[in-house]
């Protein structure tokens, strides 16, 4: 199967959008493109299952390798395994939901959808790259569209948030760059040549001192994307000032770019250093979880609540990666998928509420269940997934991370696990408070005439809810998908021990 189609399709859709005139054409083209992406993602899933069933045991399937810059040994090398595939599915869901939610975007709509689709090109490219240069290329491609989306179509202090987001993410990529250079120049493919190829590097042994020097660069660089404490400060402003579709993409996918990078690049290629720095990562992740949760409790704006809770939930991803057990790494990937879907749903619901009530402050909302039952239900489902209600994907991911974390008997690790578990209580507080106040109770006169969700919002939310429930009720299909991939990573990590 032709894997580059994952990049070419959204690129073609984005180019096509530029030639459209009028919002109807623009959004129809975007919807067709996003739907085609979803079909493509599922096609790859089915093909992947077939290949594995037929006995194909290679780590990456559907590989394509073209030399790009021969003198530097840079290749356009792409391929997918279970982890990448799950990320691709996540991206497909969030993009189509984002397109549908932005159905009535009037201002400069052509440019808006163009930038949104460009973001998806960056995300797909990043998840399927197997060459460090190509990965880095797609990682940076995604930053500028975010800046423009927030700065032009956002609300509140949008220019400030956009600039802060762009600069901090670029700072992250600068650190990643240094890490990549360190790895590249310490690989040896014979007669002094170096390589950027992830699969090749994973077979080599990079000297431990070198690993210990460059692992922090790579991990912190990618960690900035995943709101690693104390570099998480771009998240609250960035997510809250962004327009709905951009928030969904930012929190749903962009933060996972970091987690994926931490796993695939930092941990996979530098396993010795991953062991050495594990305590630090765990401490920082736990702080993010606890601090994020408590900070959320203080927020009064729905979007800020979700943004800070994203900091907290992405802390679970980093905690899972830091614990370095088979189960915890599985949990980290599950949490990436689950949180992506959940936060996209949450932002979509908040966006729907905002377009109707023109306020995001919890204190001003109330009783929405009476007038907008669908939106309110979706809102509550997102909230329940966030606090880990069994039956939804959040529970599956968090339980896996906790069980994996508990496996390590070290005192620090156990303490971190206990604290992380305890944060669920805090999560429950802020979710139930926000959800309860918003959807129940007396309804103010201003909201009596609100209309419920339109077809595009129903489809967008519906798709995300189906995905969340599918993972929550029957997580085995996702777990079996990602397990071979995480096995290979963990084999490498455990070999060092």
């Amino acid at each position: 199967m032709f894997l580059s189609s994952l990049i070419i399709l959204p690129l073609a859709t984005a180019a096509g959008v530029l030639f459209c005139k009028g919002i109807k054409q623009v959004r129809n083209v975007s919807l067709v493109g996003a739907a085609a992406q979803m079909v493509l993602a599922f096609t790859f899933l089915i093909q992947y299952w077939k290949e594995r069933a037929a006995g194909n045991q290679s780590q990456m399937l559907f590989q394509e390798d073209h030399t790009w810059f021969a003198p530097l040994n840079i290749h356009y090398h792409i391929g997918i395994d279970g982890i990448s595939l799950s990320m691709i599915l996540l991206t497909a869901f969030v993009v189509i939901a984002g397109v549908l939610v932005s159905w009535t975007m009037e201002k400069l709509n052509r440019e808006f959808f163009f930038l949104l689709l460009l973001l998806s090109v960056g995300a797909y490219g990043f998840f399927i790259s197997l060459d460090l240069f190509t990965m880095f290329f797609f990682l940076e491609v995604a930053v500028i569209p975010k800046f423009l989306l927030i700065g032009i179509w956002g609300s509140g202090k949008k220019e400030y948030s956009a600039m802060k987001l762009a600069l901090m993410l670029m700072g992250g990529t600068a650190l990643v760059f240094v890490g990549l250079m360190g790895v590249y120049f310490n690989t040896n493919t014979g007669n002094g040549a170096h390589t950027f190829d992830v699969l090749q590097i994973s077979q080599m042994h990079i000297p431990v001192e070198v690993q210990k020097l460059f692992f922090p660069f790579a991990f912190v660089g990618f960690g900035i994307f995943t709101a690693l404490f104390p570099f998480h400060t771009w998240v609250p402003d960035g997510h809250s000032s962004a327009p709905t579709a951009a928030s969904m993409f930012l929190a749903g996918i962009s933060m996972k770019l970091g987690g994926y990078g931490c796993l695939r690049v930092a941990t996979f290629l530098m396993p010795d250093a991953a062991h050495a720095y594990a305590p630090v990562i765990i401490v920082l992740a736990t702080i993010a979880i606890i601090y994020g949760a408590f900070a959320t409790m203080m927020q009064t704006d729905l979007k800020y609540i979700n943004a800070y809770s994203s900091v907290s939930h992405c802390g679970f991803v980093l905690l899972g990666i830091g614990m370095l057990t088979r189960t915890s790494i599985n949990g980290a990937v599950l949490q990436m998928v689950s949180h992506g879907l959940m936060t996209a749903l949450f932002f979509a619901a908040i966006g729907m509420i905002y377009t109707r009530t023109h306020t995001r402050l919890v204190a001003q909302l109330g009783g929405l269940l009476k007038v907008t039952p669908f939106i309110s239900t979706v809102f509550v489902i997102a909230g329940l997934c966030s606090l880990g209600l069994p039956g939804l994907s959040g529970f599956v991911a968090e339980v896996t991370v906790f069980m994996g974390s508990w496996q390590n008997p070290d005192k620090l690790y156990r303490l971190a696990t206990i604290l992380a578990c305890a944060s669920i209580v805090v999560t429950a507080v802020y979710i139930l408070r926000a959800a309860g106040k918003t959807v129940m109770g007396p309804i103010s006169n201003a909201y009596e005439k609100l209309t419920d969700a339109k077809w595009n919002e129903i489809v967008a939310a519906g798709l995300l809810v189906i995905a969340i429930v599918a993972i929550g009720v029957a997580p085995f299909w996702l777990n079996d998908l990602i397990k071979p991939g995480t096995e290979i990573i963990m084999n490498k990590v455990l070999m060092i021990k």
Partner: protein
Amino acid sequence: MNDFFILMKQEIVIMIIIFALLIIKVGKDRSNDWVLNMVNILLLINFIAGFFYPKQGMLFNDMFRTTPLAVLEKNILSLGTLIISLQSYSWLKNHKHVIEFYVLLLSTLLGMFFMISSGNLLMFYLGLELSTIPLAAAANFDLQKKKSSEAAMKLIISSAFSSGLLLFGISLVYGTTGALTFTEITTHLSNNPLQIFAFILLLAGFAFKISVVPFHLWTADVYEGAPVAVTSYLSVISKGAVLFVFVSVLYSVFKPISESWYNMLFLLSVVTIVIGNLFAIRQNNIKRFLAFSSIAQIGFILVGITGTSQLGATSVIYFVLIYIFSNLAAFGVVSLVSAVTGKENISDYKNFYKSNPVLSWVLTIGLFSLAGVPPTAGFFGKFFLLMAGAGKGNYVLITIAALNMVISFYYYLRIVKAIFMDANEHPIEKVVIPGFSKIALYMCVAGIVLTGLVSYVYDYIHSLVPEI
């Protein structure tokens, strides 16, 4: 005799064009439009002719050396000159001294060609002087403005001073090695303190020309005062030529003292990047802003030069080409807006997108390429430059450079923000883009988009750079 014509073909073509212009000046009175069309066609022919028969050889007892790489470098400069000429159409249309301007400009180009092909320090100096003095006269070409004369004066005086330093260095090199030819100098170089001192003087001369801190003080005032065409020329062509020479001279001639110059370049690059960035943040005049941002870019190029010879030279030449496209895209829009409306402040560009969407996108793409955002070519250029620098194992330098890229991001994004996001009470009205400027801008944008993604350009340059 045949050898002479083939090896010096690019120089001969330029000389023919200069003579043709002089003949036109003496002959029948022609309208400016006719002259401009003529010149641009001639420059196009010059650029295309450069691609035929690149040969290796030397003339005049190794004073003039040409290699396929030198031919490529000259072609890059010709391309840049063509684009600048196309972009200056609207400014020159109403100018009284069009032919004089082109004679001056092409004389400097000729000087640069000689400089690139020099095999001997005297030839190099000859080329250098030929490339500087007419440029100072050209800087005065906004004849009605006092600032233009001020820029020209500053340029000629600082150039003269730096040439003096350079000559002192050359004389010391001759005194200590007994040779002026590059190949002979290398054999006599060692870590002799007097020779290191000579090298420092030579470095000072070079550093002035490429605006390395602390030799950069002339840059902002000259860029601001000179007409935009001359500023573009100074910022890309003049710098590019000197960088080309610098790279080949440094790696081949001064190889024996590579330890010493490595440390010097390390220091200079860090200082240049940091100071360039700090000052660029504070600028409000877009021409001064582009001047300071170009200083920071040169700092990045110095990082690339510190790398191993083949990787470093390739990345520098590649980056100069990309830098030409990116800078000329930005300058093209700025010069057009300046010629039509006279507005040059960043705050004037607020809400530029509303009235001029096409120009906004061209300016934005140029700025993104300067900042190093994929998928523009600037990303590849910067990545390879820093990669070359990392090859020597100096990760402190790379980290400083990479973090400074984030700072440079800030000031480039500030302009993008103004164009797309800010409101403006007196916005710039719709600017009609003349035909030639359109061609030039399209060429720049095409260059920015293609030079990076298509690996052919980089591979080609890499194949021409000798392994030393």
